[in-house]
């Protein structure tokens, strides 16, 4: 027994296998990982299997599809840009300043991530709708109505997607070694120079990741958009809404649009990942 034991140690030492990096993951990791990956892959495969490949061009050439594509492109990119310019300062405040109720504010910022989007849309309506808390005086004063407008779609996208920007950038700021900014100060850099030449370049990979995530989230946004902005072709009917509406009448168009969303999202995320997250 003892001899066997020693022998096995001796053998493994001789072959050196104990120190070689594992070639194949053990079953207790491989099996759940495979199931997890299947959960991601199977729905995509299902979509690919049912996709109306031969009629794809015709289906995507319809007015409804083209307008949904255009609107989704405009609104998701706008939402990502607005999230960038509002979300980074929010992350900054949350990370760099002590103030009473900070944890409450942080919870508030992350709320849209856990709220069902429909609830978020309803909340937006209560706040910014024509009869809403802020929307009502806004309408009285300017005649601007956010719901049922492309602006409303963008607003809904910002609402649900900006938490991802705040979360990503706050994490990056928190992880940033303050000594870099201090070193820059001792070299004569003012606040703006420190920000422009040290802080922002150093958190840039996370900011780009944040942009990708907010964009993807805004592109996929459905519940809050429908609740707050409604559904009108060419004005508020984004890809997800078009898919939802088409699913009830014209399944092939719905599948074709879904396919577009899968391909575009995957392409952008993979491209950004290769470009930034590898270095960052």
């Amino acid at each position: 027994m003892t001899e066997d034991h020693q022998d096995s140690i001796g053998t493994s030492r001789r072959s050196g296998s104990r120190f070689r990096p594992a070639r194949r993951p053990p079953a207790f990791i491989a099996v759940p990982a495979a199931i997890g990956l299947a959960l991601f892959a199977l729905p995509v495969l299902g979509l690919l299997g049912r996709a109306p490949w031969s009629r794809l061009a015709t289906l995507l050439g319809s007015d409804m599809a083209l307008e949904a594509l255009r609107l989704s492109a405009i609104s998701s990119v706008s939402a990502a840009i607005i999230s960038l310019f509002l979300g980074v300062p929010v992350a900054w405040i949350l990370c760099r300043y002590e103030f009473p109720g900070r944890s409450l504010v942080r919870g508030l910022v992350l709320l849209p991530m856990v709220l069902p989007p429909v609830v978020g849309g309803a909340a937006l309506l209560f706040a910014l709708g024509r009869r809403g808390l802020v929307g009502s005086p806004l309408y009285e004063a300017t005649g601007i109505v956010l719901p049922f407008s492309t602006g409303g779609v963008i607003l809904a996208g910002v609402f649900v997607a900006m938490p991802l920007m705040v979360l990503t950038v706050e994490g990056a700021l928190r992880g940033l070694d303050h000594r870099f900014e201090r070193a820059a100060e001792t070299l004569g850099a003012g606040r703006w120079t420190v920000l422009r030449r040290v802080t922002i370049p150093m958190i840039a990979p996370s900011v780009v990741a944040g942009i990708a995530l907010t964009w993807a989230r805004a592109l996929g946004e459905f519940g809050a958009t429908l609740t707050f902005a409604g559904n009108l072709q060419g004005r508020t009917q984004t890809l997800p809404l078009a898919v939802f509406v088409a699913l009830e009448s014209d399944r092939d168009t719905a599948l074709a649009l879904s396919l577009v969303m899968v391909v575009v999202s995957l392409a952008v995320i993979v491209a950004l990942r290769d470009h930034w997250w590898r270095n960052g």
Partner: protein
Amino acid sequence: MARRLIAGSFAILLFVSCAGAGTRGSDRVEVLVAAASSLTDAFRDIEAAFEEAHPGIDVVLNLGGSSLLREQILARAPVDAFAPANVAIMEEVRAAGLVSGSARVFARNTMTIAVPAGNPGGVTGLDDLARPELLVGLCAETVPCGRFTRQILLKAGVTARPDTEEPNVRALLTKVERGELDTGIVYATDVRGADGVIAIAIPEVYNVTTDYPVAIMSGTSHPEAATAFVAYVLSDEGRVLLGRHGFELP
């Protein structure tokens, strides 16, 4: 502090789920009923009354746009009984071989113009749906309510200028109710159940009537319970409840 909060939340969740499990004995037969969203209030009342009469059966309502429900059924969702807002949809499901026995019409509905309390847009009839300054909502053309709406507008010769095409009638009604929309066309029954919404009748010559059929699905795993539920919908008790919610009865 945070940890205590989390622990507390979990405790509450656990308590609620246990309590739920307690009332919902595992010996009860579960009947899944897919019903058009316009039936929401009426079917909730029917569910309560039916479960009181049949303690061994637990009715679970899946309420949604009829077309969406059709898609779910065609994708073999385990539905026991189906009540869409449209006979044609039932026929499609039947054509797929998924209906057991016959479908029976149990209720009728008509359409009406809905405006928020106070009627801020000053809507008086179908013509107002073409006014560009009003925020107008319609049901999407892909759902029965939207198809009926377009039939009515076509007959009346009105070109509506919608600001949104809601994929289900409940969402449309909520937005009218909240005053976010000045007007919309919904089922007559919807307005009856809603506070803060006023109905403006559509002249009978333009209006459409829709029949609500109900049927047992061939894939049901509880045919007796499903049969009992459908029978209850068609019974006098069921008709009373449907009538209370504004449905016309065949």
